């Protein structure tokens, strides 16, 4: 009876859901941000992580993360080593053309946000500078079995 929701769905999802936002543009070649196991000092933050160091020379880079459950917390952050560079950050779900979230770096060159989603998501980093350097972090928590769902009971 002990069912891992993640295990239950893992094969199912890889077959059925899109791995990255849709495009017919063959020039868009997103890089998968592969998640690796992460053990935190406090085990409640255990999960998976990706840390990527980027020297971006193109105008736009495309990334995607897959294998996510709607019951997992997700955090993504970017820290630029060139705080004066202007970045346009776009998080996309269904396609690259219409971003679901857009953001810019703060004055210190940082940006971060938490969210939840099912399946996968895409990230676009746009910077018009000839070269910009940044670190990209994606953390995905363990799938939560108890998210405090409302009770279907009433007192008699």
């Amino acid at each position, binding site marked *: 009876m002990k069912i891992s929701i993640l295990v239950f769905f893992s094969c199912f999802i890889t077959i059925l859901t899109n791995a990255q936002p849709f495009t017919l543009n063959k020039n868009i070649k997103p*890089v998968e941000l592969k998640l*690796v196991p*992460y053990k935190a000092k406090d085990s409640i933050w255990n999960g998976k992580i990706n840390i990527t160091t980027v020297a971006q020379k193109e105008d736009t880079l495309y990334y995607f993360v897959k294998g996510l459950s709607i019951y997992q917390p997700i955090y993504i952050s970017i*820290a630029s080593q060139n705080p004066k560079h202007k970045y346009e950050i776009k998080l996309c779900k269904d396609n690259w053309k219409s971003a679901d979230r857009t953001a810019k770096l703060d004055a210190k060159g940082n940006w971060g946000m938490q969210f939840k989603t099912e399946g996968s998501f895409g990230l676009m980093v746009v910077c018009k500078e000839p070269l910009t350097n940044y*670190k990209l972090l994606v953390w995905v928590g363990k799938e939560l079995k108890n998210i405090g769902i409302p009770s279907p009971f009433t007192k008699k």
Partner: protein
Amino acid sequence: MKKLIILIAIFSFTKSYCQRGIISTIDQARAGVNGYLDDRVESAQTMAGQAYSQFNTARGLASSAIDFYNSAEALSNSECTPDFSTNGNAVMTSTCRESGACESCYNDAVEHMNTYRMLLARLNCIYQNTKSFTNSAVAFGDNVAGLNAYTGLAWQKQRTNIMNSFNNLKQTYDRKYTEFIKGLKDALMEFNTCENQYGSGDWFAKSGFIYFEFMKERYKRND
């Protein structure tokens, strides 16, 4: 001849240098090379620098991962998120809830029930999200494909694949739906056993049945 060779060499070098110049460098930290992300938090911290500090700050604001999760919104406004609300008419009664003696029996049954509630809600969201993705991709592709014949042909192949994949999803949904609804009923019957033992008899017929029918209807695929 010598000059030509030198010219070709210079040209090749310049070309490869220029090509390298426009390609970005993307280095992903990999576990398994030396396992630094598995066991040594400090390594991840050092590697990610400020990006990690931001993560630390964000999680410092939450009391737990559940709190962190619940304060997060879905990425897309149009994305389906699990809905656990219950229709007022389908809310179940429980006498067992107020009795300490049946707590263990009750908790196990409710845990099983909640597992299936979560599975059904997720299944439904996967279906709704994929349906929305499919519709959006097909509409986009149909628009673009009209622009020229070559794109049109390539798109028709992709369109068929997308539609086949979605039709397979429908079958999988129905199969999983049957499985999870059965699991939910089993959990409700577990609860019924607890109620028979500690509370009112015939609980499923009086209370659980209406909830079960509500859940069956809510998650039944109707397209």
